[in-house]
């Protein structure tokens, strides 16, 4: 409710804008738009004018040779460990110190990884996590954008910090939920606070490095991150959608 004021034109415009912006946008709409565009491109490629058969054969053979050469040159497909470290260092340098914790884990454990064709069973994924974080898995699974499925769940340790990491995936889109233990006195910088956004007593923080978007909050001795290459607003929406559930499900440290 607002204080009494005459509804002059400027007030009415402001109220209108506020009301319009209060309408939620479907979480997966942007992804669906991209899918439509991708499907349209694929359909267009398929329906291109056909070539004479000898050209098809020649191009097929040339293509096969090129693929074979590429495989020979680039297997293994994942970069070497030193390349990975260099890449993580270079990208992480663009994020604030505490944001690097989640970002480094995302790149190391989600980007530089081969994925199975089909998503593993939920039971298998949950079994890979400490029992205390089983609830967090459920929260993530329930709140990921439409079409995303959990592909990876694991715990790892780096730089004296324990991580629980869930990776959800849809086609080539990856999104990580990283829960890291919070060291004493650690706090995200106030400059990265998302103004005016609070939910269940939580404040949210945002940062980016190259095209990685990072949203984060602090809870119960943990630092919680959502990292993806989705637009910043969308990435933040995912974080906010699961924040309260995560906070409630995380064990007290």
């Amino acid at each position, binding site marked *: 409710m607002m204080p009494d004021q005459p509804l002059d034109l400027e007030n009415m415009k402001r109220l*209108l804008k506020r009301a319009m912006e209060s309408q939620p946008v479907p979480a997966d*709409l942007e992804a669906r*738009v991209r899918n439509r565009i991708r499907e349209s491109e694929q359909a267009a490629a398929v329906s291109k004018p056909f070539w004479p058969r000898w050209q098809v054969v020649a191009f097929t053979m040339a293509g096969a040779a090129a693929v074979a050469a590429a495989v020979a040159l680039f297997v293994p497909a994942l970069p070497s460990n030193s390349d990975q470290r260099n890449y993580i260092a270079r990208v992480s340098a663009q994020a604030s110190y505490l944001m690097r914790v989640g970002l480094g884990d995302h790149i190391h454990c989600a980007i530089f990884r081969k994925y199975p064709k089909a998503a593993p069973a939920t039971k298998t994924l949950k079994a890979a996590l400490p029992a205390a974080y089983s609830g967090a898995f459920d929260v993530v699974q329930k709140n990921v954008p439409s079409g995303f499925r959990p592909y990876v769940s694991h715990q790892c340790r780096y730089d004296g910090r324990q991580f629980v990491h869930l990776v959800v995936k849809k086609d080539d889109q990856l999104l990580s939920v990283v829960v890291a233990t919070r060291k004493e006195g650690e706090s995200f910088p106030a400059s990265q606070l998302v103004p005016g956004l609070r939910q269940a007593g939580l404040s949210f923080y945002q940062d980016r490095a190259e095209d990685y978007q990072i949203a984060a909050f602090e809870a119960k001795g943990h630092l919680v991150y959502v990292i993806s290459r989705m637009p910043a607003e969308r990435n933040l929406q995912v974080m906010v959608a699961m924040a309260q559930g995560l906070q409630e499900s995380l064990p007290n440290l």
Partner: protein
Amino acid sequence: MERIMQVSGAMDNWLDPAQSNVGGQETLVNVPMNRDRFEVEAMPHLNDLFRTASRVLGERSRAEDVVQEVFLQAWKSFDRFEPGTNCRAWLFKILFHCMNHHRRKWYRFPLLREKEEFLEANLTSVEPIPEHLTDEDILAALDRLPGDYRAVVMLVDVEEFTYKEAAEILGIPIGTVMSRLSRGRKGLRDLLETVAKEYGLNRAPKESRR
């Protein structure tokens, strides 16, 4: 969705930005299709387009379909769109064109006769009204405006397009934009005043000083 796809071919000429003067652009040159540019210039407007479509169509699922169609059409034409011109206005023009295409099927803009009845019923009060109004109240009042007025109010007062841009987007003369805007604002204001009175919260400035 299939229905939308069926008519998309008929929109090709209209969608050619070289034929559009939205945003005051007079001459456009061919530029290579650029996915990154589309991401930067077009995608950020998705939420605004969806919210506008949702209010105009009155149904979120239809708005979702239309917005997907708008971006697909924009993407197909984007190689001819000149960087730095008003991409947002261009997208809104596509949006309203898409919605008009489906008007006969499920557009809920009332007919002109209803507009006149609406004016007779509503354009009477000039009293200022308080702001004891929720977002839901305001959206409900907006929904009660005749569609033509609602569209102009949303484009000018919410999306902050100029009269000229709104006229281009809707394909109507500027004078019509101005008159619809004036009536739409007044109608909206009166509807909101009625809502406030129903709440028993209406206190005009003179009363509030007592």
